[in-house]
Each structure stands twice: as C-alpha cells, then as structure tokens.
C-alpha cells in the first residue's frame, strides 16, 4: 500500500513535471496575473494529484489542462477584469482573417515580438482566448477543448475562428503602432 502510493506519486510527478510549463503558461494567459496563475496552477496540480487514480491514461496534458480551465471558469473568472464574451456576438458571422485586409502576413508575423503576441492574446476576450490557447499553443483537439470548457464542438469551432480573427486584428494594431504597417494598410478604407 505504501509502495503503491510512492509509485503513484512518482508516476504523477513524472508526467506533471513534463506538462507543468503548459499548465502554468495556460494559467498565466487565462488569469493575466502571476500571483493568480501560481495559485491556479498549484490548485490544479493538487486536484489532479488527488484525482490521479481516476485518470484514464489517455492524454495527461489534455486532462490536466481541463482541470486548469474548469478551475479558472468556476473560481477565478468572476474575479477577473477585462472583456468578457458577452461583449461580442459569439455565434455571429466569422470575419475573414486576411482576404479583404490584404495585410501581408510576412509584415505582420515576422516583425511581431513574443511579448507583443502575448499582449495581443491578452486583448482577446477570455472565452475566445481560451480556445486559441488550448488549440494553437497547447495543441488540444476540438473534442478536448470542448471537454475542458464544457461547450459543444460547434461552439469551440466558432470561438476559435473568432479568437484567431481578433488575435490577428490585435497584431495588426501592434504592427501599425510600431510602423510596420502604414496607417491605411490593413483597413477597408
């Protein structure tokens, strides 16, 4: 029994240590506060450790990120400030990311610094941001994102499309501010 517990701890710790940068990164990107992120990541690890016997052994990273997301939604989100999904029409028409804007991706993405990408991401309302983080940074499938956020796959698809569109717009704003885009470039005017 004691050895079983030791083995369980070792097995959990091995897997958790590997994915912890993702856990902490996701927590930080969701909460946008280092202190909250540390609390959220710690609480998620503790809950995952407690529930490790119920883990089905499939995808540890997806499982633990689901715990992080659920915890964030249930506990931290109410305390967070900033744009919420209610301010945007979630099921609305998805805006194209490039076709009409004609902004060369080369200009937009080659010049973007990591900090600017993070800042652009932080501007995206949290529900869209969550979908983008879990899909594009952490590589979760639609089904895993749906499980983590508790919404249908259709909603995940639309949130991702909308989130990416908003993300690109925010990056355009930075590019314009830094002078990589002329003021009229990338607009419909």
């Amino acid at each position: 029994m004691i050895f079983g517990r030791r083995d369980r701890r070792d097995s959990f710790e091995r897997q958790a240590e590997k994915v912890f940068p993702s856990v902490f990164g996701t927590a930080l990107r969701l909460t946008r506060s280092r202190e909250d992120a540390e609390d959220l990541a710690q609480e998620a690890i503790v809950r995952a450790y407690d529930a490790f016997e119920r883990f089905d052994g499939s995808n540890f990273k997806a499982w633990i990120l689901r715990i992080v997301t659920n915890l964030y939604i249930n506990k931290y989100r109410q305390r967070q400030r900033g744009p919420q999904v209610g301010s945007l029409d979630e099921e609305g028409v998805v805006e194209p990311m490039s076709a009409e804007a004609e902004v060369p991706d080369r200009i937009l993405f080659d010049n973007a610094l990591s900090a600017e990408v993070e800042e652009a991401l932080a501007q995206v309302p949290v529900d869209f941001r969550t979908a983008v983080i879990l899909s594009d940074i952490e590589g979760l499938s639609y089904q895993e994102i749906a499980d983590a956020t508790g919404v249908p796959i259709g909603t995940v698809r639309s949130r991702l499309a909308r989130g990416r569109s908003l993300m690109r717009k925010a990056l355009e704003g930075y590019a314009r501010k830094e002078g990589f885009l002329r003021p009229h470039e990338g607009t419909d005017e």
Partner: protein
Amino acid sequence: MTDPLDLHALADGELNREDASRVRESLRSDEALNAEYNAILNLKDCMRDKTLRFDSEDAWRACRGRMDAIDRTKRVEGLVTRYAWAICAFFFVMILSGRYATQGTQGAAAQISDIGALAGTVRSQNAPDLRNAAATNRWLDQMLGDTRQSIAMDRLTVLGGGVGEWQGMKVKVLDLQDNNGRLQLMIIPANLNLQDTAAMPGTPKVYAGNLGSSNCVAWSVDGSKTLILIARRPYDELQTIASRINAQKK
C-alpha cells in the same frame, strides 16, 4: 461555398478525409479562400513559435511542496485508520497501567473521615470465644493475616472484631482495650494516601488524623496495606501503641 469554419478545421486537422478533400478542392479554385487558409496557418505558426516560455520552476517547487504535504497527511490518516484499534488498546493499557502504577507508589487517595465512619458500622460478627486463648490467637492471626503485626495480649485485650466493605475492599476492624479504655484497629488491604492527615513529628511514616471526638494514627505495611488505630487518646499515646503493634512481628 466553403464554410469559413471548415478552413479552420482543416488547418487544425479536424476534418475527416472526405470533407478535407472537398475543402482542399475549393482552395485550389478560390484564391481568396486560399489566402484566408494561409492566414490561419500563419497565425497558428506565430502562436506556436512566438509565444513566451514562462519560468515556472518556483511554481513547480511549490506544487511539489503541496504534494509532499498531501502525502504526509494521507500517510498519517492511513496509519490511524489501519491501526485505530491498536492505538485505542495502547491508550487503554496506558490508562490502566497508570492507575495501577499510581496505586502502587503513591496509594489511592482517601479521606480518613470516610474510612473512620466505617469503623462504627462494623460489628463483631465473627467475635471469637474470648475465654479460649488458643481460639482467640488463631482468630487474631486470621484477622491480621500477612500484615506481620501483632497484638500484645498482656497489654491489649481483644474484645471482638469484624469485616466491613469500603470501596470494594474488605476492611477488618478489631475492637481492643487497654488500661486507658477502648481502641479500634482497622486493616485496609491497600496503600492509601490519607489526605486529611499529617505526619507525626519524628516519625514521618506514621500519620495522625482526627475523627470527630477520636484521634487516629495510620501507618503503611509493605506498601500494600494501611493500618489505622482509633481511640479517644492523645496522638503520642496512640503512636506508642501503634509502634508496639508494628514492632512485635517482623
């Protein structure tokens, strides 16, 4: 007409083979759609390559600390749950041992006034035929038992005696008499810590107490018995008689 969401799904590898080939076919014939698809891919690359890697070492150390604390708690809970019966038994034995140890060394606490009250209630139920000296001596030996005490028949006369019960113990009471009047000797099969007595000056193993109109002196034998001599006498006289009783049989 291709659903824009399908472009995202294709970029994410979430379309089945049939839908994926349908969307790819549209991409070949529609430049705007192709540009949109590339924009999605480029954004995905940007997100993958240009997002920050946060330092999480301290946070991970804190998590390990929490897991250590959980393990410690579970270990203790497990032990307590598994060995609850043994822990209970251990404490029960400890309490019993403590009780016996206290009895053996310090003696059970008692008020001499409580014991003295017993003396008045014990009657000479087993009084011997005092005209027969041999029978009286046998009876006295029975009463005194293994106390190694002795009644000097030339100084003290045995009037009778009996056995009473006090706190579950059989207490023997001897009614005696000498030239100055009557006395009672109580033999209690326990080493009592008599709380309302004081050590006699010069003889710290003899304790003096008061029972209303009578005085008494008490002493212990072998750490397992207490003898109390009661009479309407001064303490020093009682002490003298007590020392004779105590000294005569070693």
